């Protein structure tokens, strides 16, 4: 492997990280929104959200990427590879995030909600000050878990021509006929990325714990 080969895989890592982060940035709030729709049992929207989650969960990321990239132009929506890739990962992760948020909402203690209600807190206030902080805290481990899964699902978008870590490693292996070194290097990069996510989670948890103790 030449220096250029290592560099190309690092370059792939930038694609992996940036696409994953953008998808997380969209996917986590979308998931929260859908979970709230389901939690509040809004007629019609509730069922629509449930169907959305069910369909996306059955669809492998590669298939979803191919569908978005190759089939959508048939109905007049032609996306470039990067937007199509981000859309794929966002749709995918938002469905799983919905279920994570929903389980936190299901477990949310009803009496606290009723207490907030008895103090006359408005809906928005209730949600921001009573519900949200607690479901964020409860969902964080599962959300970060899903984020690490997303990072590892991201090679699916390589099928659109996006060169992320795995694709870059495959290219090097295909050129040198020696696939082991690039794959090991790819594995190291994935480990670092996942480690960064987990580390961030730990820091947030510690801050929350300290904030709780100092109150």
């Amino acid at each position, binding site marked *: 492997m030449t220096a250029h080969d290592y560099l190309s895989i690092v370059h792939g890592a930038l694609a992996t990280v940036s696409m994953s982060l953008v998808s997380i940035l969209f996917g986590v709030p979308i998931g929260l929104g859908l979970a709230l729709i389901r939690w509040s049992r809004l007629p019609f929207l509730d069922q629509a959200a449930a169907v959305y989650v069910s369909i996306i969960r059955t669809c492998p990321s590669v298939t979803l990427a191919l569908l978005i990239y190759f089939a959508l*132009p048939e*109905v007049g929506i032609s996306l470039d590879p990067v937007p199509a890739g981000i859309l794929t990962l966002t749709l995918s992760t938002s469905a799983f995030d919905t279920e994570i948020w929903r389980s936190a909402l299901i477990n949310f203690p009803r009496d606290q909600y009723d207490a907030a209600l008895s103090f006359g807190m408005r809906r928005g206030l209730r949600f921001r000050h009573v519900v949200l902080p607690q479901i964020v805290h409860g969902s964080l481990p599962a959300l970060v878990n899903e984020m690490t899964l997303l990072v590892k699902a991201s090679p699916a978008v390589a099928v659109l021509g996006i060169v992320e870590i795995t694709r870059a490693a495959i290219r090097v292996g295909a050129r040198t006929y020696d696939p082991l070194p690039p794959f090991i290097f790819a594995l190291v990069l994935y480990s670092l990325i996942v480690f960064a996510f987990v580390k961030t989670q730990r820091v947030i948890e510690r801050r929350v714990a300290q904030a709780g103790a100092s109150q």
Partner: protein
Amino acid sequence: MSLTFKLMRPSTIVPLSRRAALLPISAIALLAVAGLVAGPSPARAGSLSEIKARGYMTVATEDDFRPFEFVENGVATGYDTELLHEIGKSLPFKIQQTIIPWAGILPGVTTGKYDIAATGVLVTDVRKPAFEFSSPVAVSTTYYATQAKSAIKSASDLNGKTVGAQAGSAMLANLKSFDAELKAKGGPGIAKIVEYPSNPEAYQDLAIGRLDAVVNTEINLRTLIKERPGVFALGQPVAKPVFIAWAMQKGNKELAKLIDDALMATRKNGKMYELQKKWFDTTFEDMPATSD
């Protein structure tokens, strides 16, 4: 195909082959869905007049199919890429090349995302009704390769051996037919066929002795042996030759005609054979004008 065989001089009966069949299941599912969603929609792949009007032709090539197409220091290279640039000089429009993995290539052509796949596509009977193929750019024959010090001296020595191939490839199908042939001749047949997601992994297992042989196209194996001298040795063919050509959307005959004329010109001026010599270490000078 039998025609090809006869047309070729013995010394040049060394075609190569290409992983043929990953023709992804997803592609089929995709087409089904596309059909449901859109019905008979206007094809997006350009007819010749549309390509001329927009001023460029969209071309899909691969990134991990050495020596046909691969990426070196971030730049696309290989036989098909160089041949594409060569014919590009005579085409009345520009070439816009996109590098994508094999799984996206044929669906991209059927759905019209790309005008042409300038990659080593094996012209199989299954694909003929689905694509418009250019005139052949190479010939493929499935061979086996062994370790350099192997005791396997002829194809029939594969009886009782462990042989690897790429999953879903045409070469795997060839290997299975060959296994049946061995058994029909009364031999025990191949002991075990191991399938790999890609060829480099199979070569790795051959090098460390987990496999007795690997099947792939002659061209791919020759390139491998050149790259890793003293490790591997080329064996014999295990199937008949098949053409390799570029694929366009079915019915896009005008574009196919233009590409064919440009390709035939590179045969006449010898440029195509030069590139074959460079990338395959052999030439295919007796190919017919069409891939049918």
